[in-house]
């Protein structure tokens, strides 16, 4: 947006007497990608987290390697809201390309830390400006050209430490977490922090209201991104075969998994691995390998994003119909096609639920937090083997690649469920082996695994009878797909139950899933506080849905389904399960611009639909940013 389009109300510069704003504001660091600012941003985030202040960090980055604008936003919130908030109060302007526009986007009374050469104080007069001579300060720390950029970033951390009151020692602890035993690197970065701090102490008079003060709100929690959490879950689930193909935003799931597996799953005596990771030639081959491994009895998985899901369609149909276990992580990004590879969405709900041709249905898990990425990963492998079918875990870019505070992960309470794998004892009990025979009435047949001296069968995606023989008979086909549907019905009560909060006074219900949860939590409080609108809440954690869904909708006059896609995909999926009378109570709140959904958007939308408001206020409109050019 050109600067001239932004109307700015001119006001005199604020004074230090403004009421302090403690632990309730957002810090945005604007840089270019590839400048090494990630370390400085994570150190700042972690230091605030260690001070016991609820915090969340989101990186908005371009699909590019170096040189394009990137914004890292840290939200601090004393009330524990960790969803996205549109407004930023503290700007660190390190990118000359966007500095002016970023400054113009701020609300009055915000503060700006910037390189003095940018002369941002001439742009507006209603902000608090803190010019910093970065080049001169960097020179105090190092003459090493390679280190300069990184040190420059660490200096803004030092400046913010002084201005906002972020404990320097906590920053050093965070540095040690990042760099481990690299003593020299830690020392150099600490020096940069000190130089920034000292400069601010001597030359910058505090004139803004923003402060970080220690709290005790984060007890026991950890800070992690969803992809790393899922990786830990896969390792603890006992995965043995991992096949993947790089794609944003899922790559870091398998990359982190490789790191953990190498650390914890290599035999210390022999140096041999209890796992195999293969970077396949494409997503099709990645899933093919996972299916081959699953057929041969291993716990196997792949991880991808929307374009990979599209490619995997044929193989998913094979695994569904031939009944082969596999776990597929879909870290969703914005589609269709290449779409916005570095932006978030919940746009693959329908395409994964019914992926592949013919009548197919697949179980989906919807984690909302890193803790659920972990626990659902563990669960997904049990479910895939129990039900002999592909199981999807639908994460998204926001969850997968951003830093979240979350409950620490619990050790799996139950042993691994390897499902109905034929052994001698079972064979004796069931009498005869028929690969697709429904012995137990739950739609789940017994399977034999190659190499174990049990009766063999010919696994195929073509029509087959109970004995896995090729068949084009009408009755064989229909009996088989009816059994598959029975199996799918059995799934309902094995999947993670929804999280339901019934408010007896509420006539309005809200349904959400995945990362949308965090904005809904905050929005419900806004609805209550601003409009006295009481709501109940139902958070999906899996598809197929539980019967509780219908009873939740029955209790309410109107139910808002909040999701991050254009087409109300979850509503469509729910309609396939609900009586028309109940489906008619569903309304949608949709958010699909690539940014994380925020509470304000939900609150305003529901208030308009409920008749409390007529239209959006102009101030709430999102300011688009020209950040998305480059290759994938």
């Amino acid at each position: 947006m050109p600067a001239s389009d932004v109307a700015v109300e001119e006001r005199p510069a604020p004074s230090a007497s403004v009421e302090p704003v403690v632990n309730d504001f957002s810090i945005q660091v604007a840089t270019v990608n590839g400048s090494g600012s990630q370390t400085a941003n994570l150190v700042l985030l972690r230091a605030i987290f260690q001070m016991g202040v609820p915090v969340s960090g989101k990186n908005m980055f371009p699909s590019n390697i170096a040189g394009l604008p990137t914004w890292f936003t840290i939200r601090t919130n004393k009330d524990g809201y960790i969803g996205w908030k549109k407004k930023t109060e503290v700007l660190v302007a390190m990118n000359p390309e966007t500095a002016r526009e970023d400054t113009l986007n701020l609300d009055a009374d915000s503060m700006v830390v910037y390189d003095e050469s940018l002369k941002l104080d001439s742009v507006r007069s209603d902000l608090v400006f803190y010019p910093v001579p970065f080049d001169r300060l960097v020179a105090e720390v190092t003459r090493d050209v390679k280190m300069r950029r990184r040190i420059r970033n660490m200096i803004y951390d030092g400046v913010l430490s002084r201005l906002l009151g972020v404990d320097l020692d906590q920053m050093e602890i965070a540095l040690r977490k990042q760099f481990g035993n690299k003593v020299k690197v830690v020392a150099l970065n600490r020096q940069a922090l000190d130089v920034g701090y000292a400069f601010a102490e001597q030359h910058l008079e505090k004139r803004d209201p923003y402060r970080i003060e220690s709290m005790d709100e984060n007890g026991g929690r950890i800070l992690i991104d969803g992809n790393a959490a899922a990786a830990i879950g896969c390792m603890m689930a006992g995965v043995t075969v991992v096949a993947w193909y790089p794609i944003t935003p899922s790559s870091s799931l398998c990359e982190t998994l490789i790191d953990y597996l190498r650390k914890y799953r290599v035999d210390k005596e022999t140096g041999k691995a209890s796992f195999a990771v293969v970077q396949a030639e494409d997503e099709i081959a990645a899933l093919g390998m996972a299916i081959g491994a699953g057929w041969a009895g291993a716990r196997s998985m792949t991880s991808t994003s929307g374009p990979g899901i599209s490619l995997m369609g044929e193989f998913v149909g094979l695994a569904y119909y031939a009944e082969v276990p596999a776990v597929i992580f879909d870290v969703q990004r914005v589609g269709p096609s290449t779409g916005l590879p570095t932006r978030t969405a919940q746009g693959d709900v329908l395409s994964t639920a019914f992926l592949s041709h013919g009548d197919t249905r697949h179980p989906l898990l919807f984690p909302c937090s890193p803790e659920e990425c972990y626990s659902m990963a563990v669960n997904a492998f049990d479910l895939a083997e129990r039900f002999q079918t592909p199981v999807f875990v639908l994460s998204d870019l926001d969850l997968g690649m951003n830093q979240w505070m979350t409950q620490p992960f619990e050790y799996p309470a139950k042993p691994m469920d390897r499902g109905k794998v034929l052994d001698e004892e079972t064979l004796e009990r069931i009498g005869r082996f028929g690969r697709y025979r429904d012995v137990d009435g739950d739609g789940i047949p017994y399977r034999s695994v190659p190499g174990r001296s049990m009766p063999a069968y010919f696994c195929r995606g073509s029509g087959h009878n109970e004995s896995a023989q090729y068949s084009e008979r009408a009755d064989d086909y229909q009996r088989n797909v009816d059994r598959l549907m029975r199996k799918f019905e059995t799934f309902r009560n094995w999947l993670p139950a929804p999280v339901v909060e019934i408010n007896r006074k509420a006539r309005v219900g809200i349904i959400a899933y995945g990362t949308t949860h965090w904005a809904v939590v905050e929005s419900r409080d806004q609805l209550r506080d601003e409009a006295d609108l009481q709501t109940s809440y139902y958070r999906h954690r899996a598809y197929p849905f539980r019967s509780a869904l219908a009873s939740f909708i029955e209790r309410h006059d109107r139910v808002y389904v909040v999701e991050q896609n254009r087409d109300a995909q979850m509503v469509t999926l729910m309609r396939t399960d609900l009586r028309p009378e109940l489906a008619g109570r569903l309304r949608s709140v949709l958010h699909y611009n690539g940014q994380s959904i925020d509470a304000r958007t939900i609150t305003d939308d529901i208030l308009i639909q409920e008749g409390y408001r007529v239209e959006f206020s102009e101030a709430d409109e999102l300011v688009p940013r020209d950040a998305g050019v480059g290759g994938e």
Partner: protein
Amino acid sequence: MATATQSLKKKKINRIGLELPVYRGSKTTLCAGCGHNAISERIIDACFAMGIEPTQLVKLSGIGCSSKSPAYFLGSVHGFNTVHGRMPSVGTGALIANKNLVAIGVSGDGDTGAIGIGQFIHLMRRNLPIIYIIEDNGCYGLTKGQFSPTADVGSVLKTGVVNDLPPIDTCALAIQLGATFVARSFSGDKKQLTAILKAALSHRGTAMLDVLSPCVTFNDHEGSTKSYAYVKSHADQLEELDFVPYFEDISVDYEPGETQEVTLHDGSRLYLKKLAESYDPTDKMQALGVLHDTHERGEFATGLIYVKPAADDFLTTLNLVDEPLASLPEDRVRPSKAVLTEIMESLA
């Protein structure tokens, strides 16, 4: 086992005490006289002769006439008829899950050369221990006779359509990509094909076999370069093959100087009786040269074209524990509570 070996000839049982019918499959549904049926017979012969344990065998295929054929051999063996052109990835996963399995993959010229060329290429690169057979008839049989990417320039469909695109030589491609065992044979050449299959069963790495297999229905007419008549008159045998498995007493009547011996990883030996002067199948450049020269003459070089017996296979490079990954018990794949605690502390 000793008893079984002693009575080998009398009762027609193999060295692990099994009779030939154990290695047979269902009745074929392919056309009468289809070359693929002959290949199935040779697979049965080779597995029986080598005494392969059926419970350790898996057979895999893609889609097409060729890929239907695994139903017609090794009926007591686990099989996986996958999707079109993607059998290599499924085989890769299966073998990673259980590295003790012996895998036979059957594909066709369309399944490999067209839709599956990507997976074929990466299979050759990885040197996965699998026997990969292309039942090559130069056409799509199951969809009624369209050209495949191995059809020769100038070959003619029954409808009179002439193929004007050059063929992919899967053998040359495989050699370039790093395949360690590359052979070409003819479905009707019982002796050569059986010897190659037996050698392939002893090879540790990808054994790529392009087996010319005329399609009696759509591609066995004048004008087709993959008809019985054409192949019989244009197959240029590189060498006469004999194969001696490691478990047999080695006594062969080859004269030194006329034969070349290739020892495979398990100690089995391949004897190549020279027909072409100084042909050395371990010489990659010569192998490619022969393929080029015979192609220029409109001929097919048959026999073991290239072999590299001592290369590391894919499963070896993965440095896996000794037991199959699929059979590892929980305590070997789920780290202890202490590990999770350590990770949690690093993130607190």
